[in-house]
């Protein structure tokens, strides 16, 4: 008993060291821009760089659009599969996992081949339509996270019976979707949304090859040309990601009714 607890602590310590030491090292390095003393100069420079604000703003915008499109696509799909086509679930799960298996670079080359300015669908012809293409590609990239989160949320409530109950009370499809299904899978939708946010904000390949001014390519550019600022940026990116994770935790626990059904099914 006692030795197994000790073993667990050792494992935890090794994990913590593996994870924390590089992080602390990066943080420490990011403070050493001024000779012989610690300072936040690197952070000041990063925050003062107009490209930092522009690219981060652009990526946040893309992330929000991706989340909206993703929710609109995934929630009704997952709901319909749970309700009417449970046999199709393995196939859809497989499809949603494909973006994890197919490298982003393959997907983006596919896009460039299909949608180049001389193709029948010239998405890359101007900046706005390229943004549309980029959002579509981000929806694809975040599909595994969004689908899984929503599907888990849907399975925790008895979707079929709740739908029937709402129907027998006179509700139509839009009422069922917005008044019954969305509120009860809210925590699933939110965790999908924050994971999507974290994925999109730091994404490099798609944005770079589609030549859009996103945060990922900016990180790479600074990393290639500067010494201390990349470390500061890495720490900032970490904080953004962690904030997303923290928000998942808060929202996944707080919803007033959504977790109740999950409790009951256990």
């Amino acid at each position, binding site marked *: 008993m006692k030795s197994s607890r000790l073993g667990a602590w050792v494992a935890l310590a090794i994990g913590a060291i593996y994870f924390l030491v590089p992080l602390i090292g990066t943080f420490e390095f990011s403070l050493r821009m001024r000779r012989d003393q610690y300072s936040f100069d690197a952070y000041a420079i990063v925050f003062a760089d107009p490209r930092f604000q522009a690219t981060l703003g652009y990526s946040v915008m893309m992330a929000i659009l991706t989340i909206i499109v993703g929710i609109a696509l995934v929630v009704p799909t997952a709901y319909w599969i749970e309700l009417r086509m449970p046999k199709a679930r393995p196939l859809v799960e497989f499809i949603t996992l494909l973006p994890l298996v197919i490298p982003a670079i393959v997907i983006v080359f596919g896009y460039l081949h299909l949608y180049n300015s001389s193709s029948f669908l010239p998405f890359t012809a101007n900046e706005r339509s390229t943004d549309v293409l980029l959002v579509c590609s981000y929806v694809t990239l975040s599909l595994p996270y969004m689908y899984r989160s929503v599907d888990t949320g849907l399975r925790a409530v008895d979707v079929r019976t709740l739908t029937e109950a709402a129907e*027998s009370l006179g509700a139509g499809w839009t009422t069922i979707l917005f008044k019954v299904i969305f509120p*009860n899978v809210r925590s699933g939708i939110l965790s999908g949304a924050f994971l999507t946010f974290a994925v999109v904000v730091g994404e490099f390949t798609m944005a770079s090859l589609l030549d859009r001014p996103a945060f990922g390519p900016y990180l790479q550019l600074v990393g290639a040309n500067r010494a201390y600022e990349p470390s500061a940026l890495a720490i900032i990116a970490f904080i953004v990601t962690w904030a997303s994770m923290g928000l998942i935790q808060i929202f996944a626990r707080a919803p007033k009714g959504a977790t109740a059904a999950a409790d009951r099914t256990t």
Partner: protein
Amino acid sequence: MPFLEIESLQKSFGAQTVVHHFEMTIDQGEFITFLGPSGCGKTTILRMIAGFEIPSAGIIRIDGKDVTRFRPNQRNVGMVFQSYALFPNLTVAGNIGFALKVAKRSTAEIKSRVEEMLHLIKLPHLADRYPRQLSGGQQQRVALARALAGRPKVLLLDEPLSALDAKIRVSLRSEIRALQRQLGITSIFVTHDQEEALSISDRIVVLSEGRTAQIGTPFEIYNFPNNRFVASFIGTLSLLPALVVDARNGRLSVDGQDVVTNRPLNGAAVGDAVTVALRPEAITLQPQSENRNNLDAVVEEVGFLGSVIRIRARLNDAVLSLDMFNNPNQPPPELGARVALSFSQDDLLVLDAAVAAA
């Protein structure tokens, strides 16, 4: 004029037919129970009335209107589910008011109707609770109030008590019945529990393998089962092989002993082998009196259940169960004792040979 009419309703899933030509008419305010073992089609018929399943053939009319092809939300039929199916994101009041809100009634009207329903189910203090904060029995009462709040034409209850523990099940079923009488709402209750069905219904529909085995009042179903399935599914019944000796006078031979029945022989002729049945409460160990049947048997088992003593007695090639009330002045017979089983000529059922074979 009947309120709910069901005409030759049929349902198949692929090659499998689960409901065969179901026919029934139900009057306004009647409480009907569909009773049968799992897979008998009772829930499927209920779901077709609710609109969750489309019949393969047949017509359903509610209040004279053909609703067979209507969507569930166009039928104005209330439904109570086994799993309660309350909306976890809404309070008790929100759940009860859901149908009225969907129907876009005024806030004041919703509020007063919700209060009225909360009083009806005797939970006025729980309006602001969430379903997860309620016990199972409370949740099911809220589900009942939710189904009734929109004043449906028909109330459907799909095994609403199965998920509850025994004590609540009994008290809630009489509450449901009282509420149904008070509101006069036409109701259909699905269960596999025969005691529940007998205690709550105006009429019972016994179903077996997608067909109607018998429709009748609890009294008729219990005392005059049409066939072997109904007889054995409802209550305890001892089945005995018998030979017809005299068809006109109802004389039979059971285990080589003569007995007489006043019940119809269902067309059996002299020399035919039939199955006869006896309820345990029909048999006594009292000495024979006039116009009663008498069978000699050996006591094989005595079960003391408190108010009732259940005895198993063996004939040569059959076993009978009989119940006697506990009486401190009359100890039960010993194991192995020879006893005379006495029963009325009216209590010896002859089961329909044709259906018994099915």
